[in-house]
């Protein structure tokens, strides 16, 4: 029995915009944005789709004025490219799960902290945003290298006998990727968490719910919109990850962004690059709809209603 079938996570995300759409005035206000999106997103994207249906050419990036679906056939049949798509999604799923779980913990701790502690926790999240992506990704190399800080510590306390291989490999890629998306996920959850009344948690505990149960019964349903946003941000970014696999990955850590880059700039095979991108875009779109649907179901009804 759910409270209100219409109150899905999507509705709750859209509700601030409701009542504003539909009027001509708001359309007028939105027109600069719509124009901007048309120019920098929709038009280039249509060009990109058009290129993906062109024939591949030896001397040029693609053969203009031709039409074929050969590149799509190639993308969907090539085991190498399928492997690359699968790797991208695996990285996306693992990094997203880790990020969202950590972000919920971190956001909750920040919410409950006060004074200097709270400022320190918030500042620590925002600080990495001030550094460029390449530097904050690359910084993991000296930390995780076989002779790096992490291994020195582990060896010093005799937790391991020989240095662990952490970079360059998938472990390093996941760590780097989680580190990149964590601030955005945490802030998305935290912003919703701050609107939750602490009294609800107290009421749950007063009625006999333990700390863990009161979190799952009362806090989690309330922060589902934040978790949804955090999940979508983390997932979209991690599936399209570029810098973490490029800097921290081994040769086998090859997500689609690296492949597209190579096809575009090294092989000059634009039809393959754009076809792969389009396939990924469609898959991402479907994935995000699935995420909304799944999290939306949990949004109002997480504590398996009475």
């Amino acid at each position: 029995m759910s409270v209100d079938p219409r109150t899905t996570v999507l509705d709750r995300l859209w509700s601030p915009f409701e009542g504003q759409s539909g009027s001509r005035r708001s359309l007028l206000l939105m027109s600069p944005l719509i124009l901007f999106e048309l120019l920098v997103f929709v038009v280039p994207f249509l060009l990109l789709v058009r290129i993906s249906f062109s024939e591949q050419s030896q001397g040029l990036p693609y053969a203009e004025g031709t039409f074929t679906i050969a590149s799509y056939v190639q993308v969907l049949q090539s085991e190498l490219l399928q492997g690359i798509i699968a790797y991208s999604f695996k990285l996306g799923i693992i990094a997203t799960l880790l990020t969202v779980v950590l972000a919920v913990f971190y956001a909750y701790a920040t919410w409950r902290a006060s004074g200097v502690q709270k400022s320190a926790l918030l500042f620590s999240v925002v600080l990495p945003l001030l550094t460029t992506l390449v530097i904050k990704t690359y910084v993991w190399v000296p930390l995780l290298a076989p002779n790096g800080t992490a291994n020195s510590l582990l060896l010093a306390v005799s937790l391991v006998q020989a240095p662990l291989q952490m970079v360059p490999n998938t472990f390093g890629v996941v760590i780097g990727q989680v580190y990149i998306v964590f601030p955005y996920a945490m802030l998305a959850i935290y912003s919703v968490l701050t609107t939750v009344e602490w009294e609800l948690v107290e009421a749950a505990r007063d009625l006999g719910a333990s700390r863990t149960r009161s979190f799952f019964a009362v806090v989690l349903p309330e922060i589902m919109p934040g978790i949804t946003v955090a999940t979508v941000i983390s997932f979209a970014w991690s599936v399209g990850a570029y810098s973490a696999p490029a800097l921290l990955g081994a040769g086998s850590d090859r997500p689609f962004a690296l492949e597209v880059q190579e096809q575009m700039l090294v092989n000059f095979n634009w039809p393959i690059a754009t076809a792969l991108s389009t396939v990924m875009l469609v898959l991402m779109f479907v994935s995000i709809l699935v995420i909304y649907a799944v999290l939306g179901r949990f949004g109002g009804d997480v504590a398996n209603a009475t």
Partner: protein
Amino acid sequence: MSEIELQNLSKSFGDIDAVTDVSLSVRDGELLCLLGPSGCGKSTTMRMISGLETPSSGTVYIGEADVTDQPAYDRDTSMVFQNWALFPYKTVLENVAFGLKMRGMGKQQRRDRASEMLERVHMDGYESHSPTDLSGGQKQRVALARSLAVDPDVLLLDEPLSNLDKRLREEMEIELKDIHEEFQKTFVHVTHNQDEAFTLADRIGIMNEGRLVQVGEPNEVYRDPKNKFVEEFLGDTNFVSGTVSDIDGQYGYLMTEFDSEIRVPVASETQPETSLTVSLRPEFMQIAPITDSSNRASHQTRADGNGGGGVSGTVESTIYRGSSIRHVVDIGGEQLFVEQGVTDQTAIDEGDTVELRWDVDDILVFRPDGTRVRD
């Protein structure tokens, strides 16, 4: 058994002492009101009973057990919150059944019990509604049902009526009293509203600045306030300060701010020249117009043979307050207010010269530090 015993309970938040050395016994099955202005520590005291707050020092007993270090979810208390704290993503029925679910009661059983509780608070028919769709009064009833459903030893009510309008509040007061009689539980009710406390309470505990000032039955604390704070907080009154000019046995003469002497009861240790403040409650004073023109000019104290006292002055304003009329009377530059029932036929208008009379023994006298003067 569910009496509550608080021993030397203190709570500070950083540098702020919210509650200081409160010792209090709440009897089994009693409805005790903790009454005091905002920030007096009454809510913090209640939260320490519920376990939502841990005392800085002191002990909390519920029944025979020391529960000081027990978390809220292990205590057999249940709280009704000021803002009701209903779970917004659960239905009314799920809200009421929540505590039973946490106690591991089976699904059908807890649904039946929750429905029964909703019926008791006249909220049957709202089972599948969302709490966000309910009015304040309805939320109040659901919150009450949710707390009663777990059959707690002690029910704690944290200003649950303060967000309701006057009429609804009075209705809920009666209903709370009925529920208290029916369930025979120990209730602790926190409020800043004197009327609410007088209507509901078996006993009232008055708090100020983190301390428990006085505990007693409603008529006891009203008739016999321990200090000036209690007298001031429990009802509207006129405070008049002055210096003792003369002592005559059990009575002294107080030279007041309005340049006339009034006769007040004093204690045997009271010396002349002491500063005292007296409380002239409006309900102890009678107002009567002076028709005799020879008395008009004087603001004289009038002491007659039968222990009465009085002053005369000019009516400055008259405020119609529904069931009563409040007259503000100017006496030599100082104002006293007095109340007159609307059925009282004596017509008094602004500008009239009137006489205020009282029985000297009704006057309560306080020292400058607020303590009561009495023998």
